[in-house]
């Protein structure tokens, strides 16, 4: 006998409840059935869905709730797919294109090209030397290809993050209502374990598509660039805006001529964080078939190959240092040129 039988008997709902039909039985019930003990007041279970279900089968179990969510999602999946599939398809093209470009260009073109980018961004020979030593080290221990795959994914995802994140941040800075609406979403994206939003993505898209991990990385990494763009523009001195108004600037002129340039250090800090966070997602993305250093980390974890795990982890750290230093150097140049 279940604890809460008396509620349904007392309300005369026994007929509505019907007979117990489902076949599942927990270990606890099995043992209780033999001992024939009734539960004491001390052990009274909380009237949760599962416990009420024991007394009245018409009440759904908690797994009915999760199962219902799943079925609901599966029901709208097809129509959702019609909309989302074409919109996100370019992401797959970008990722495939970037991956094949980074892999087909021979190393003796790729490495100098990357170093040239570093020099243009930082104008610092010391940094170029540091980056060169890191990349050559990775190539020397045969991790060049994996590192390039990881870099390709990060370039594409960070670029799209900036492309989408900066306009969203600007829109947020101009409307308090929008800011109130978006901030909880940003909080959620940052705290929700990435695995949770990987599950619906696996249902929605074919697992062989690169956009699956692309979307996961972008959702996670887009947050800082939005936040810091919003913050940067809001922090622009009121007096400066007043002066711009006094000159009779239009809103558009104010945005591009005053607010964005003054907010640039903050926006660049956001870009730096976005790149770092997309790097942090590399290992998780490898669970849904992203190539790169994350695959090696996973192999290290799966087989307890300590060396493989440590070396590929070191590779990720080196990439992180490179990306961090280069974006910080670019940020420093923006700051000094602004003054």
């Amino acid at each position, binding site marked *: 006998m279940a604890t809460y039988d008396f509620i349904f008997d007392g309300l005369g709902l026994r007929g509505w409840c019907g007979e117990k039909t489902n076949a599942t039985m927990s*270990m606890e019930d099995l*043992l209780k059935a033999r001992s024939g003990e009734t539960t004491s007041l001390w052990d009274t279970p909380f009237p949760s869905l599962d416990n009420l279900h024991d007394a009245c089968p018409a009440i759904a179990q908690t797994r009915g709730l999760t199962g219902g969510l799943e079925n609901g999602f599966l029901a709208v999946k097809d129509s959702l797919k019609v909309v989302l599939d074409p919109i996100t398809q370019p992401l797959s093209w970008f990722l495939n294109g970037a991956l094949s470009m980074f892999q087909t260009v021979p190393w003796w073109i790729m490495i100098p090209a990357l170093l040239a980018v570093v020099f243009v961004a930082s104008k610092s020979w010391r940094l170029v030397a540091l980056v060169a030593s890191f990349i050559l080290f990775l190539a020397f221990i045969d991790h060049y290809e994996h590192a390039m795959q990881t870099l390709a994914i990060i370039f594409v995802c960070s670029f799209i993050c900036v492309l989408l994140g900066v306009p969203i941040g600007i829109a947020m800075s101009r409307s308090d209502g929008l800011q109130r609406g978006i901030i909880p979403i940003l909080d959620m994206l940052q705290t929700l374990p990435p695995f949770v939003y990987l599950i619906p993505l696996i249902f929605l898209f074919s697992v*062989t598509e690169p956009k699956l991990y692309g979307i996961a990385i972008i959702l996670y990494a887009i947050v800082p660039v939005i936040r810091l763009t919003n913050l940067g523009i809001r922090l622009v001195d009121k007096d400066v805006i007043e002066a711009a108004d006094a000159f009779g600037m239009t809103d558009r002129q104010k945005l591009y001529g005053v607010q964005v340039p003054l907010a640039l250090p903050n926006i660049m800090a956001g870009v730096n964080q976005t790149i770092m966070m997309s790097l942090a997602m590399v290992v998780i993305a490898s669970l*849904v078939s992203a190539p790169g250093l994350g695959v090696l980390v996973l192999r290290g*974890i799966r*087989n*307890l190959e300590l060396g493989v795990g440590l070396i590929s982890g070191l590779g990720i750290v080196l990439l992180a240092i490179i990306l961090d230093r280069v974006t910080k150097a670019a940020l420093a140049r923006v700051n000094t040129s602004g003054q």
Partner: protein
Amino acid sequence: MNKQSLYALALTGAMLPMAANADCGEVSIAEMDWVSGGINAGVMEFLLTQGYGCDVTIVPSSTTTSIASVAENNEPDVIAELWVNSAPAYNDLADQGRVVKASDAFSEGATEHWLVPSYLVEEHPELATAEGIMNNPELVGGRFHSCPDGWGCRFVNDSLSAAFDMEGNGLEVFHHGSGETMGAAMVAAYENREPHFTYWYGPTSELGSYDWVDVEIGPYDADVHACNQDPECAENGISGFPAAPVVNVVTTDFAEREPEAFDLISNVTFPNEAMASLMAWHSENQATIDEAVVRFLQTEQDVWSNWVTDEAMANLEGLF
């Protein structure tokens, strides 16, 4: 004897009077993080606790961590459902006499397959053999779904796909990032009636719930398969998959300390069919592993009643 095991011994001594059978002490069982592993450990836990009066601790674990833990600390006592191909360290430990195999976890061992869904083979019977698939790659979607990095089957599949020249025949070899996406891809393809060609293993719920056709690769050749398994060996050939050994393992110390419990574990071998259908039931009913264990105990009594002693059977009387 180290400090820890002395402590454990003292604790065991304190527990003894409380246990139903005075001669069974503490048992720790490593439970694998997949469904059949959970059922295996759950059934052992139930029979040992209720039938033999042991004090059982379940340790959530996985293949490599459990075997590493036994190698370093001689704990846990029992590893339920160890897939030997994924745990090469097991053979070393067995050679050193540190662990003993108690039983095979499945009557026919684990099975490995190349699979296509049955609806495809009904339309195109030639897809039932690997040769037929190589000649018609477009009928299976032009892609072979292969294992993630770090799985033992990755090497075998790489060798076989090279031997069949899959890429040359127009089949892209796609390496999944995890077993989860591989299984999800199978289920999604089957539900949508799409062409699909994949590696998978059994007993699993994917094999229990859906009808797949085992693609004929070729006869099993022990030497060729051994070479295919070894990433260093270059002379790859074509060989089917043998049944893979999956064992219930106990430490030698445990076998000596708890002979009765060891006897029980030596008998625990699930028929493949029963396990596959139980796992299919588990996923259809969204049941917990606990409930799947009860389901097995209730419906397959004639299987497990042969595992336990008469004395233990008497203790279990009245439960079913």
